[in-house]
Every structure is written in C-alpha cells, then in structure tokens.
C-alpha cells in the first residue's frame, strides 16, 4: 500500500478536538499548552484516524467527476447497488511511542493483517479484516502504531 504523507496542523487538531467535544486547552491554546507538561499543542489520542484526509484515493470521500453512493436525487447515487450494510469498525488499538506536535510531518504506511470469519445471530456471517498502520515522523522515528479491525456483515446489524 502506498505511503501517505500526513502533515500535523494546529487548526486540524482544533477541529478534531471540537468534534469529540474535548475542550482541553492542550488541543487549541498554544500558550496554555506551552506552559503545560506536554510543552505545546498535541492532538487527541485518536487523531491519526484523520489520515483519511490525506489519502488521495480514500473511498469514503466524494470526489469530483465520480459517482457517490450516498443519496442525491435518489436514495443512492449508484443505482442497482446491492443493499449491503457495508463495512463497520470492530476494533481499534493504538500504541503511542513518541509525542507529536503541529509542524510534524508523518508518513503512514498500512499493511494488511489477519482475516477471520465468525457467525453471528445479529448480522449473519461476519468477515473481519485487520490493518496495521505505522506513523513515522520527519526523522523516521515511529510515533504511533495503529491496528484496526473492520468487519463486513452479511446483513444489517439487528437492533433487537
């Protein structure tokens, strides 16, 4: 899989922290963050998930000139698409090796991991796929390791 360049920016960290409702000054107030133990603005623990912004081919972002599967004139922009529930996120794990600050430029490299299947009463056959992403900074140092597990379900998850 191609490597993705991920510049860590203060405004992006501020927006991400707002989205999770976290008002801690270390995410948006440079002066307060400087006075704190972390010595400057840092991102929230799940921030590297926003690497999707920097993946030119990310499939869950509409792109000019390409059909989008969300609704527009009709309930889906892609007619005849099977009514699959698509993929869901099953697990996410992070290991934090070094601090990260605005101005750092990360390189993310993702490798596929294990794949396994399981039967479930609520959603039929479940197929799990693991992906491991290493984020390195501009010095080549490992900053964060992320391990995600996605699941595709045979049918929408029963809410009963």
């Amino acid at each position, binding site marked *: 899989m191609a490597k993705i360049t991920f510049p860590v920016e203060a405004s992006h960290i501020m927006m991400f922290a707002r989205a*999770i409702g976290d008002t801690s000054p270390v995410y948006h107030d440079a002066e307060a963050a400087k006075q704190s133990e972390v010595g400057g603005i840092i991102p929230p623990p799940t921030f590297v998930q926003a690497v999707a912004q920097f993946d030119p081919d990310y499939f869950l*972002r509409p792109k000019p000139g390409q059909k989008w599967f969300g609704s527009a004139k009709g309930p889906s922009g892609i007619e005849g*698409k099977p009514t699959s529930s698509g993929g869901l996120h099953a697990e996410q794990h992070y290991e934090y090796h070094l*601090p990260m600050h605005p101005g750092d430029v990360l390189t993310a490299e993702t490798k596929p991991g294990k794949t396994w299947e399981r039967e479930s009463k609520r959603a039929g056959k479940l197929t799990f796929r693991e992906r491991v992403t290493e984020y390195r900074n501009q010095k080549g140092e490992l900053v964060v390791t992320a391990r995600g597990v996605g699941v595709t379900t045979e049918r929408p998850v029963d809410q009963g």
Partner: protein
Amino acid sequence: MALKSSTLKVGDTHKERVVENLSRTQIVQYAGASGDYNPLHTDEVYTTQIAGYPTVFAHGMLTMGLTSKMLTNYVGPGRLKKFGVRFTNQVWPGDTLDATATVEAIREEDGAKVVDLKLSTSNQDGKEVVTGTATARVDP
C-alpha cells in the same frame, strides 16, 4: 494533573458523561474533521432506504474519541502508552454516553510507573457501546 502511583489503587474508577443527547450535527462535525464521509453516519436517506438501518449512527471512532476525552482528563494529556477498544454496539443520535476507567494494575514498565485501565462506555439504557483497555504513565 497527572496521577500518582502512590495514591492509586486497584479498583479505583473514574467516570464521566462524555456526550449528552448526541446530535446528528456532531456526527457531521466528526465526519468533517476525520475525513470519513461514509453516508451511514450522515445521510439519513441512504442509511434508511439503502443500508436498512433505522437512522444514521455515529462513527465508531467518534465513540472512541469521546471515550478518550474521559481517559485524558483522568490520566493527563500526553500520558497514554496504549489505548484500544472494541465497538460492541452502535451509537445513535440522541444517545447519552458515560465512559468509565477502572484501575486494573499499577506496575513498572521500562523503569517508570504505569497504570493499566479497563474501559467501558455505556449508553442511557446501560448498554455497553465500547469496551477497552489503556496503559498510561503515572507519577511515582
């Protein structure tokens, strides 16, 4: 403020309400910040008519982010060594979530004190939506 290993004990808990009456707009906000525009999270028409769900639902990563807010408030910013979760139930607009960390162990790792935490986030019906674990550096 960072935690001190000398004042922590196994079984200590820290609990916070991390969102009240989750709005569809906050889910949209998370889509914009994270870059994950899956219509399952923001597009009511697609989600109900094509995907077959009762309404849109939160990104798992939004629930993990909400859980992280409780965690960093407890252990202090920049203190995490590990943080992992499983998404056990979906989170829907209108949900109110409480996140809890429970001290499982206080030990040494690489010559420094760390705390192992068990994590659980539940909705207003007491249904668990996230379970997980975390390890954080603590002061002596």
